[in-house]
């Protein structure tokens, strides 16, 4: 990136709250229903209807506010944001303007191992609009109002980010947080978590912000990074070639990997907000707050720190394991169930299990290997019934069927042989069969040791206890060494 320029980024994130019913009506919010089957008279903006606020939406907003250590407004107000669009039947969106429910807070992100605090200006409740379908209705537009009235929490950051990378780190952190709190499913394909990015550049050292462009509705982490980087280059190029930035809204085209200006509507930002006379001010008292506070889970950052201290995990494993609440819960359940060392549990959860889940495109909540079954496998590794290598084989079987590790080990005869007599017989045989290698080992070629281990394991179908094999081989080879010398 250009050295003379500094980038300034602020994000507005719309996250859909996971309520059962809409923010101002009793219609369902479930995704994927047939068009307009979940749009009631309130959502359609029919005359004479009145909005009634959903308590759960308020609770979720307060919960979020507490998680970012923000001030929770004791008194907040809904306002009408006026504009005309066919998927907004009332001609206004009910939102919050002057007195939002969540005030200033912050979120810490990690960039290359160092922590950076990103300010959050505010978060407010509002209703979503419907959907316009522009394809193929004899030149008309089709409107589906199922989404109209779905509760959204709009989270507005301070212009604290200085690169696309930081913006993505912030967005990921926020995404992780809302899912941790259980206030949103965060499903980006379904539009439950969408991002608008305000991007500007200024000469390094300049205090004043440059003119910004707002990139609308970016719905993946990858596209946020690409859209911002494209926009930074475009702005620098424009200014360096003597052009002037205009404040405008742009759309990111992921196919062409570029942003382009939306048709400019001069009055687009003249929303004429005013308090909605249909809704009274919302009061959040101490009792309400205390009740919400009692439902706050351990937050990702705190949990990661605890994992590092309590389980002596490195930063990377702790971060991975706490990247979702369900994964962290699973990990702790495996430890509790198996009583095994945390390190072993962490290796399996972040290793074989995560790899298998990724490969199958599954989330931890859909894992075919329950924490009880994985714990059963780890117990057999810990007590030396099976080697790590055999364990991988058992795990593959567990992934395919519902059997326990013990059942698979028994059925396939995979139990490790620790019987020293049996191992000794094989070792003697291998040593006798390979005098050349014994000679080499004797003359100081330590590497040959691996050859012997491999031969013994092969002979015993991988079931010999590797620790035992190593120990006995060493003794035997030393022994044969002496014998030959003598």
């Amino acid at each position: 990136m250009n050295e003379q320029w500094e980038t300034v980024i602020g994000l507005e994130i719309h996250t859909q709250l996971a309520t059962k019913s809409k923010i101002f009506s009793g219609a369902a919010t479930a995704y994927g229903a047939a068009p307009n089957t979940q749009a009631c008279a309130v959502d359609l903006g029919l005359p004479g209807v009145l909005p009634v606020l959903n308590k759960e939406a308020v609770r979720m907003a307060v919960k979020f506010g507490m998680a970012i250590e923000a001030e929770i407004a004791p008194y907040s107000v809904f306002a009408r944001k006026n504009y005309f669009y066919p998927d907004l039947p009332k001609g206004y969106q009910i939102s919050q303007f002057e007195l939002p429910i969540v005030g200033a807070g912050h979120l810490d992100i990690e960039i290359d191992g160092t922590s950076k605090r990103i300010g959050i200006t505010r978060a407010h409740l509002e209703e979503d609009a419907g959907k316009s379908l522009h394809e193929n209705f004899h030149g008309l537009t089709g409107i589906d109002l199922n989404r109209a009235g779905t509760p959204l929490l709009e989270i507005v950051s301070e212009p604290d980010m200085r690169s696309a990378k930081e913006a993505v780190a912030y967005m990921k952190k926020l995404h992780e947080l809302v899912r941790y709190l259980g206030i949103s499913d965060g499903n980006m394909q379904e539009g439950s978590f969408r991002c608008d990015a305000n991007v500007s550049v200024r000469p390094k050292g300049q205090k004043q912000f440059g003119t910004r462009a707002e990139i609308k509705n970016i719905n993946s982490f990858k596209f946020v990074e690409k859209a911002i980087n494209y926009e930074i280059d475009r702005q620098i190029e424009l200014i360096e070639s003597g052009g002037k930035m205009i404040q405008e809204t742009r759309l990111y085209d992921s196919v062409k990997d570029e942003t382009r200006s939306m048709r400019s509507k001069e009055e687009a930002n003249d929303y004429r907000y005013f308090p909605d006379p249909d809704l009274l001010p919302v009061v959040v008292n101490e009792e309400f707050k205390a009740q919400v506070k009692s439902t706050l889970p351990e937050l990702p950052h705190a949990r990661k720190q605890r994992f590092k201290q309590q389980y002596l995990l490195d930063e990377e494993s702790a971060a991975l394991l706490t990247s979702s609440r369900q994964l962290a819960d699973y990990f702790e359940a495996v430890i509790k169930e198996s009583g095994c060392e945390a390190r072993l549990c962490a290796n399996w959860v972040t290793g074989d299990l995560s790899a298998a889940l990724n490969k199958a495109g599954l989330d931890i909540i859909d894992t075919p290997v329950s924490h009880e079954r994985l714990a059963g496998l780890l117990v057999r590794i810990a007590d030396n019934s099976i080697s790590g290598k055999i364990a991988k084989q058992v795990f593959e079987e567990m992934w395919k069927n519902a059997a326990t590790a013990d059942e698979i080990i028994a059925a396939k005869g995979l139990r490790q042989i620790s019987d020293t007599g049996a191992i000794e017989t094989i070792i003697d045989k291998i040593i006798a069969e390979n005098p050349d290698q014994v000679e080499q080992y004797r003359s100081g070629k330590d590497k040959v040791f691996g050859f012997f281990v491999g031969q013994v394991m092969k002979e015993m179908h991988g079931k010999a206890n590797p620790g035992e094999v190593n120990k006995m081989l060493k003794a035997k080879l030393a022994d044969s060494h002496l014998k030959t010398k003598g």
Partner: protein
Amino acid sequence: MFLTADEVKKIAHLARLKINDQDIHGYAKDLSDMLNLMTQMGALNTEGINPMAHPMDQEQRLRPDEVTECDNREKFQAIAPQVEAGLYLVPKVID
């Protein structure tokens, strides 16, 4: 203060109201009178008085998060000018 004809036209456009040119002066006068009244009220001393967001001094009642509405699409669409495949059809708008 007195609103200009352009300002009146802009306000009408924002509200998607079609107005006749010969009425503009009258609207300008009426709207200006209202704004002047606001200015007059603004001169009052309101120190120590909390602003109200609603004329009723009450707080918002909250509703439990329950689905209480069933599907009435057919009824609603019976009074719509044009529908297809469950969608309401409107003149084409592309943003």
